C-alpha cells in the first residue's frame, strides 16, 4: 500500500529537519518518489515524527498475563506512538533460552503493531550465577543482554559475563545497583524516607555499582548501556566516562526527570519505583544531563502492575509504573521545561535510542523504515484509568493534564493506530 501523509510539520531529529511537508510511503519505507497514494492522511496542524523507540517496556509475557497481555500492551505502545520497543528479560520464566525469545517475537509479530526487540538474560534465570547461551539467544533475536532489575551481586560473575559478551560484541544493558546496600530499602535514603519511616536506599548504592561497572568496561572492553540512572553523582560519572571515550551509553526513566521523593506525599504507592525517586537535586541533574546528551535517551520503563498489588502499604506495593502512553507527552513536557526545540526533544526518544539499538528506524529519510507518529503537540488530555489502553493503570501522573496526543501511528508503512474522531 502506498500512503501519503500530507501537510504535517515534519520533524526529523537525526537531521534537524523541521518543516511543513508531505511524506510518501511505499513498500513499508519512506519513499523519495511522489507516487500516487492509495491513502492520504491529512496531517495539517500536526507533527509528523519518527515513531518513538522505547528501550524499556515490559509486556509481561510470558508469565504475568494477569498484569497485562501482549495484546493490551502492544495496543498501548502504538496508542503512545511507540513503534519499536525493547523488552527487558524479567518475564516468568526470564528470557534466558531461545524458545522463549522466539515465541515472544512471533507472537508480537503476529499482532502487527510495534516492533519488539527482546533483551536476553545475561545469566540463567537472572540468578547471577551461570552465563546464558548468548550467541544462541542473539541468533534467536536478542539485541542485548541484561539483568533487568536484578543486578549480579557476585563481581566475579559480572566480570566474566562482561568479558564473554565483549568477546562477541554483544552490548550489555545493566542497572547500576549494589544489591547489598539496597536490600531492605524502598525509598531514597533522605529526608522524606526519614520522615515517613521508610527504609532507605542511599544514592551511593548506584555510584558504587557504577564505579565497578565502569572499571569492568575499561578492563573488558564490553559495550555498556547503563539503565535507569537515578542520581546526580552517576550523571557526573557517566560524563567523565564519555570524556574518557569509554564505550558507555545510558538512559533515564521518564518519571525520574519529572518527579522526586517529595512526590511520595502520604505514601503514594504509585511512586514506589525501582530505582527509587530521589532528591530534587538528582531530578534536576537527570533532566539537565538528558538535555546536554550525557544521558543518551529516555525510556518509559513501562511496568503494568495489577491494582491489587498497588493497594498496599508503600513498602509492600509492587514497584513500577505504566508508561508507554505517557512517554510522548512527558518527553514533550520535559523539552518545553528546558526550552528545547521539538527536534532536540524528540531525538531522545527516536534517533538516540535507535543508535543504541543499532536499527535503521528513528529517522525520516528516503529508504528508512516507515515507522512514524503523527501527533498534536497542543492537545491536552487528562491521565485517567479509562484513557489508558495498557492493562496497567498505575501511574503517579493520574489526574495530570498533559499536552501531546497521538493521532496516528505507522509501522512499516501500515497504519497501526488511529485516533478516530
Amino acid at each position, binding site marked *: 500500500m502506498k500512503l501519503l501523509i500530507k501537510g504535517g510539520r515534519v520533524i526529523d531529529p537525526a537531521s534537524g529537519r523541521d518543516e511543513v511537508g508531505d511524506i510518501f510511503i511505499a513498500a513499508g519505507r519512506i519513499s523519495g518518489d511522489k507516487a500516487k497514494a492509495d491513502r492520504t492522511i491529512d496531517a495539517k496542524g500536526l507533527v509528523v515524527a519518527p515513531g518513538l523507540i522505547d528501550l524499556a517496556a515490559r509486556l509481561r509475557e510470558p508469565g504475568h498475563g494477569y498484569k497485562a497481555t501482549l495484546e493490551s500492551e502492544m495496543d498501548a505502545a502504538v496508542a503512545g506512538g511507540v513503534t519499536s520497543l525493547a523488552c527487558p528479560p524479567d518475564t516468568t520464566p526470564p528470557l534466558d533460552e531461545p524458545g522463549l525469545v522466539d515465541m515472544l517475537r512471533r507472537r508480537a509479530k503476529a499482532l502487527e503493531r510495534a516492533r519488539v526487540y527482546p533483551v536476553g538474560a545475561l545469566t540463567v534465570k537472572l540468578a547471577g550465577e551461570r552465563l546464558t547461551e548468548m550467541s544462541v539467544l542473539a541468533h534467536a533475536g536478542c539485541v542485548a543482554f541484561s539483568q533487568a532489575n536484578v543486578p549480579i551481586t557476585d563481581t566475579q560473575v559480572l566480570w566474566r559475563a562482561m568479558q564473554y559478551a565483549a568477546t562477541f560484541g554483544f552490548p550489555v544493558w545493566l542497572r547500576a545497583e549494589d544489591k547489598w546496600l539496597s536490600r531492605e530499602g524502598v525509598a531514597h535514603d533522605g529526608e522524606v*524516607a*526519614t*520522615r*515517613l519511616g*521508610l527504609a532507605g536506599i542511599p544514592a551511593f548504592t548506584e555510584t558504587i555499582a557504577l564505579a565497578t561497572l565502569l572499571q569492568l568496561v575499561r578492563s573488558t572492553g564490553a559495550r555498556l548501556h547503563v539503565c535507569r540512572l537515578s542520581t546526580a553523582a552517576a550523571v557526573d560519572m557517566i560524563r567523565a566516562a564519555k570524556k574518557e571515550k569509554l564505550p558507555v551509553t545510558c538512559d533515564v526513566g521518564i518519571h525520574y526527570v519529572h518527579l522526586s521523593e*517529595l512526590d511520595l506525599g*502520604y505514601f503514594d504507592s504509585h511512586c514506589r519505583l525501582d530505582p527509587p525517586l530521589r532528591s530534587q537535586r538528582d531530578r534536576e541533574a537527570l533532566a539537565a544531563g538528558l538535555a546536554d546528551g550525557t544521558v543518551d535517551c529516555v525510556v518509559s520503563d513501562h511496568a503494568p502492575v495489577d491494582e491489587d498489588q498497588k*493497594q498496599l*502499604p508503600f513498602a509492600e506495593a509492587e514497584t513500577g509504573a505504566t508508561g508507554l502512553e505517557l512517554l510522548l507527552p512527558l518527553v514533550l513536557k520535559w523539552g518545553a521545561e528546558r526550552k528545547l526545540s521539538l527536534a532536540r526533544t524528540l531525538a531522545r526518544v527516536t534517533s538516540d535510542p535507535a543508535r543504541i539499538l543499532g536499527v535503521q528506524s528513528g529517522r525520516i529519510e528516503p529508504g528508512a523504515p516507515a515507522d512514524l507518529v503523527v501527533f498534536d503537540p497542543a492537545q491536552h488530555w487528562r491521565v485517567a484509568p479509562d484513557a489508558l489502553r495498557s492493562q496497567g493503570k498505575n501511574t503517579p501522573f493520574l489526574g495530570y493534564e498533559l499536552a501531546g496526543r497521538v493521532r496516528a501511528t505507522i509501522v512499516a508503512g501500515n497504519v497501526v493506530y488511529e485516533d478516530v474522531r
Partner: protein
Amino acid sequence: MPPNPQLNAKGELQHLLSIEGLPREILTQILDTAEPFAGVTEREVKKVPLMRGKSVFNLFFEASTRTRTTFEIAAKRLSADVINLNVAVSSQSKGESLLDTVANLSAMQADVFVVRHGSAGAPYLIARHVKPHEHVINAGDGRHAHPTQGLLDLYTIRHYKKDFTRLTVAIVGDVLHSRVARSLIHGLTTLGVPEVRVIGPQTLMPAGVESLGVRVFHDMRAGLKGCDVVMMLRLQNERMNGPLLPSAAEFFRNYGLTAEKLALARADAIVMHPGPMNRGVEIDSPVADGPRSVILPQVTFGIAVRMAVMSIVAGN
C-alpha cells in the same frame, strides 16, 4: 502535596495518623481534653458516657499488649463497645488483603478503627478507604509514627514541666527504627521546644535526621548536659548483634542510662521510656525505678490521652 488526610474540610481531626502536620491548636486541644479524663481514671466509677453506642475495632496486624490494652481500657471508659481483632493470626494468614479486611469490618458498623501495622503508611491506606463517618487512629505503623504514644509523652512532659518553650529534651537510642521518636520529635517541635536532641550511634540514626529539627549527639554524656527530659528508646533484640551494633553490653556502655550519666542532666530532669524496657540494655534498673523515673505515670496518662483522642475524632 495533597491535603492533609487527617483533617476534615473544617480543619478538625478526622483521623489521627501522625503528629506531623497537626497544628499546635489540635495538639493542645487533645492534651487539654485528656486532663479531666486523667481524673476519671482515679474515680471509683471509671466511666463517662461519651461514646455510648459506638464501636471501636482494635485492629492489630502486629503483636502488642500494652498499646492494645490501653486503647481497650480507654474505649471502655468512654462507654464504647470494643472489639479486639488479632489480625496477625487470622485473615491475613488466610491471604485476605488489608483493604478487604477493613471493608468487612466496616460492614459490621465500626465507628473507630485503631490500627497497628508493621508497614509504614498502612493506616493512611485504610483511612483513604473507610466511610466518611468512620475514623482511623494509628496505633503504630512501621518506623513511621505512633501518635498516641507521642501525645502521651507530650502530656507527661507538660504534666511535670508545664512550659514547653524553655525545655531541652534528649531522645536516646535507636532513632532509626523508632516511630516513637519520630512522633515525639514532631510534637515537641510543634509545641515550641527550643532544643530537641537525639543521641545514638551513626548506625541508629536515619539519613538527614537533622531535617526533623533536632541536634544529633553521638556522645551521650555531652548530649545529656542540661537536659530537662530524657526519653530512652527501646532497642529491639534482633538489632543488638549484627551490622548495626556489636552487642547489647557495648550499647549499654555507650548509650545505657545510668545514675552516673543521668547526673549530667539537670537536677530535676525526668526519665521516660515508652516500654517495654530492656533493663541493663538501654536503662539501668536503679534509674528506671528511681525518683526521676516517670515511666509508670506515662502508662496511666496514656489511657487519658487515648480517651481524649477517641472522643475528639468520634465527635467530629
